[in-house]
């Protein structure tokens, strides 16, 4: 095992350990962790068996192994950022609903408690 390989192995193993610890402490939800554990372990696997990348490159008919690696990495990052955008949009929708609910409840609560004395009373449903 060369020094370079050892370095990459340590980096990959470090990433895997960090992901695992984040998951255990509950700061990373499982639905995201699965993907990252998969990424971490495949990096470790590629460091240990670099021949694997070469054989996959051969099957797919790609000329240079590193090109395949870059292609996969970019594709993965693209997917992850798209996924994050979707999650943020969903969260914004959800917080918007909560904000509306809070505002309506507050008006109804103030009206019932009589604090501040709104001059129109609520009536109805």
């Amino acid at each position: 095992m060369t020094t370079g390989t050892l370095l990459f192995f340590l980096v990959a193993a470090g990433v895997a350990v960090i992901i695992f610890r984040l998951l255990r402490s509950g700061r990373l939800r499982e639905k995201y962790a699965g993907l990252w554990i998969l990424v971490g372990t495949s990096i470790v696997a590629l460091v240990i068996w670099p021949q694997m990348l070469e054989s996959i490159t051969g099957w797919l008919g790609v000329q240079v192994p590193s090109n395949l690696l870059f292609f996969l990495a970019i594709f993965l990052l693209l997917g992850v950022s798209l996924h994050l955008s979707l999650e943020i949009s969903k969260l914004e929708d959800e917080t918007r609903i909560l904000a509306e609910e809070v505002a309506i409840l507050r008006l109804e609560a103030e009206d019932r408690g009589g604090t501040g004395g709104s001059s129109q009373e609520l009536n109805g449903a």
Partner: protein
Amino acid sequence: MRTNGRTLIIMPAWNESAVIGGTIQELRASWPEMDLLVVDDGSADGTADIARDAGAMVLRLPYNLGVGGAMRAGYKFALRHGYGRAIQVDADGQHDPVGIGLVLDGLEHSDISIGARFAEVGTYEVRGPRRWAMKVLAMVLSRIARTRLTDVTSGFRAANSRAIEQYSRYYPAEYLGDTLDSLIMAARSGLTVQQVAVRMRPRQGGTPSNNPARSAIYLFRSMFALLIALTRRRTVREG
């Protein structure tokens, strides 16, 4: 004597403390039988307190959601409290109280009634790319709604109970979503739309921008919003 025919005036407001008090007083004097709901869209200048002191109910959003967000909250309130009609009025006083009666009358023949600025009443001048954008938008929406519409970005609009139900579910907070997208989706869900000519007063604060660059940006963004809204899947109406 509150019946199911109760009418709610919904007024979205964001940092309108300078003008909102006068607008509310004028509305309450002109239409004392209607309930007035100000949706305070996260203002930092005491708009909510002024509105409350002026005698309106105030829905305080905890942070700024944009006009679309404020309006959906208002329509949700209208739906839950069983209002039969709701009308949206600007806080800056550019919507004449006389027009409220006219726009509400439009609901006798349709689910949504829009108070239009260009319908040969009053004066309102727009030029350049902004005008082209408005023309295209008006043309496309007229076809979708199967009626003649000239001012589709007008915020002066009334809704009956069917439209309140639709709006409380779908009123996007995105750019132009509050006017264009909500209207397109309502029309595509089978609600009928009608336009009423009203007089608009000049705004009490600020002027509509006629800067060419801004107008061009408006043109592109509005076309984009239109395209997205047209390709969206229609909302399903129950009942």
